[in-house]
């Protein structure tokens, strides 16, 4: 039983902190040019990060020097905004000598506040999942600082991609979890829903209450978008009986063991520590790489792509769920869209055999 108590405690501890959330959502309507004006006025106090369209490459989140570059269209960013919270390479501390003594100093944390705009509901939910790892029993100072310094201004999806499956992961193309503010692109501007104090501080000064017509548009928008998600499936409750199944051998055949799926995932958070001179860095790592679990003795507990791909699926849909109560996947579809060989994790999970054996 202690395991169960521990699990319940963890789930309780990990509940969303409600103190920063508003008791009642605020809804506003802002014209497009007013929103851009507002963001422009923020430029001197905030770092503004948002999606930017780069020719022949796609959409990338980048710190914006000019609000003109902001892309609030239908296309999805290639990398998730995770990289601004859990940086792909980040100095943790550095060591040195002072008066003949060895010293270890934490790396300085940035203190500039920032607005991250254009996050999709799936990515914001991904941050809530990362909170469970980096802001619960273990407190990661740099992750928490990045979270505290950021106002998350989301953008509800107008047109989900064919690889999206957020509704199967208890999400929605218009979900508000993890958002401070969420924008809904409507004909002549944005309907803005404000959920938190942080959001209120930044956005309450502008816009007007939406009229009845706009309220109707908003509720229709919310309903319609979920219906646009083509993939719908149920994750098997417990994958452990099929751990040894041949199924993993079969489905992992196309896998190249590259890091596209893990690096572009809004929830994957494995890392390695790298010494660089006197600095200690935390860098991205991923379970698909063949040397991820390679031990100093030369033994590798996950020698083939079967074990590695199975690990990825189990971490997301079994282990994490058993500890934290939900899947470590938000259904953003990036791993499907960008997989060089078009592997589809949603298909692999939903087709998993239900019982033990083959």
């Amino acid at each position, binding site marked *: 039983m202690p395991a169960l108590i521990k699990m319940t405690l963890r789930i309780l501890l990990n509940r969303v902190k409600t103190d920063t959330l508003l008791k009642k959502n605020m809804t506003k309507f802002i014209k497009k040019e007013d929103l851009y004006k507002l963001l422009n006025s923020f430029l001197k106090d905030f770092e503004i990060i948002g999606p930017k369209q780069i020719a022949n490459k796609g959409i990338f989140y980048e710190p914006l020097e000019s609000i003109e570059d902001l892309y609030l269209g239908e296309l999805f960013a290639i990398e998730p905004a995770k990289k601004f919270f859990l940086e792909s390479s980040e100095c943790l501390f550095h060591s040195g000598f002072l008066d003949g003594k060895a010293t270890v100093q934490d790396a300085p944390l940035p203190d500039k506040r920032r607005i991250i705009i254009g996050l999709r509901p799936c990515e914001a939910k991904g941050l809530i999942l990362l909170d469970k790892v980096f802001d619960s029993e273990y407190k990661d100072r740099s992750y928490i600082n990045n979270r505290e310094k950021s106002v998350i201004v989301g953008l509800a999806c107008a047109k989900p991609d064919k690889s999206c499956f957020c509704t199967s992961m208890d999400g929605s193309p218009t979900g508000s979890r993890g958002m401070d503010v969420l924008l809904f692109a409507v004909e002549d501007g944005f309907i803005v829903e404000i959920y938190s104090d942080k959001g209120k501080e930044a956005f309450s000064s502008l816009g007007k209450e939406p009229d009845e017509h706009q309220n109707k548009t908003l509720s229709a928008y919310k309903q319609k978008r979920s219906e646009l998600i083509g993939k719908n499936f149920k994750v098997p409750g417990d994958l452990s009986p099929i751990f040894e199944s041949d199924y993993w051998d079969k489905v992992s055949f196309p896998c190249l063991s590259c890091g596209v799926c893990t690096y572009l995932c809004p929830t994957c958070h494995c890392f390695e520590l790298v010494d660089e001179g006197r600095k200690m*860095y935390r860098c991205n790592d991923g379970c698909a790489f063949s040397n991820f679990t390679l031990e100093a003795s030369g033994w590798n507990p996950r020698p083939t792509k079967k074990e590695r791909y199975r690990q990825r699926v189990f971490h997301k849909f079994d282990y994490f769920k058993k500890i934290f109560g939900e899947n470590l996947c938000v259904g953003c579809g990036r791993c499907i869209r960008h997989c060089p060989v078009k592997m589809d994790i949603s298909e692999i999970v939903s087709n998993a055999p239900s019982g033990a054996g083959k």
Partner: protein
Amino acid sequence: MIEELRNKARELLKTKQVEAVIGYQRASDGLSAIPCVIRSEEEAGRLIWDAACVYNLCGYLKDFRAKKLGIVAKACDVRAMIVLISENQLNRDDVFIIGMECCGVVDEKRARVSGRDGSDISSADKCKSCASCVPLAYDCLIKEKREKAKVSEDADKDKYEPVRKLEAKSLSEKSKSWKDEFKRCIRCYACRQVCPMCYCPRCVADQFMPVWFSKAGGIEGNFSWNVARAMHLAGRCIDCGECERACPVGIPLRDINRKIEKDIKELFGYEAGMKTDAKPFLACFDKNDPEDFIK
């Protein structure tokens, strides 16, 4: 054409000429292809062939060393196999090449970036400079039924034109533009994993005593990784374009590969994978080789 391919696979498996056939099947989106391995006659119905079959499947051969395999291959894929054979990485008798006459594959990458489904996207860039639709070597050839199988109208044009444009830039321009490209590199190593020529059991990038290409801080590590990757392909790259296609952040890797390819062609008249009996480029020293570029 697809039926012909499936029948051939059935026949090969039935007569036990091969243990398995590596080919393409339809992916979950109903439009793209995904690599698959066919082990029995019944499964052969899954095989497909169309312009969505972009991948170079040679990389999967290393999963099955010393087994007799059938493989569905386009002209560019066969070039890769010719290099692998010349480098003793593949035994010609171990593969049964089902050669496919190819009219070019879709630009899957452009479709992905622009959010389209690929059906309205023209041929991939690599196909535009490809001159041969029939593989150089095969054990059986499955012919394209369409009127005239021609890969590209542009095949006769100067295929190194983009490279020449790059060469014309000044040193500082080049340095800046490549730094801008490489700062995006996320070191997912998709370019390496997808490359049929990257078969080292332990890549130099995976060594950590010492670390050759650090992932920590700055772009120096990214820069040296990308340059080293291209240099390791000197005289070996057959321009299948898989690295550039797989790169999720859109680094134009083919430009670097083709610069090296062009230099080698102009200096030594060597093109990788174009002759079945050629020695590997770095293994064929000739005392008449030009050396005036050594300074």
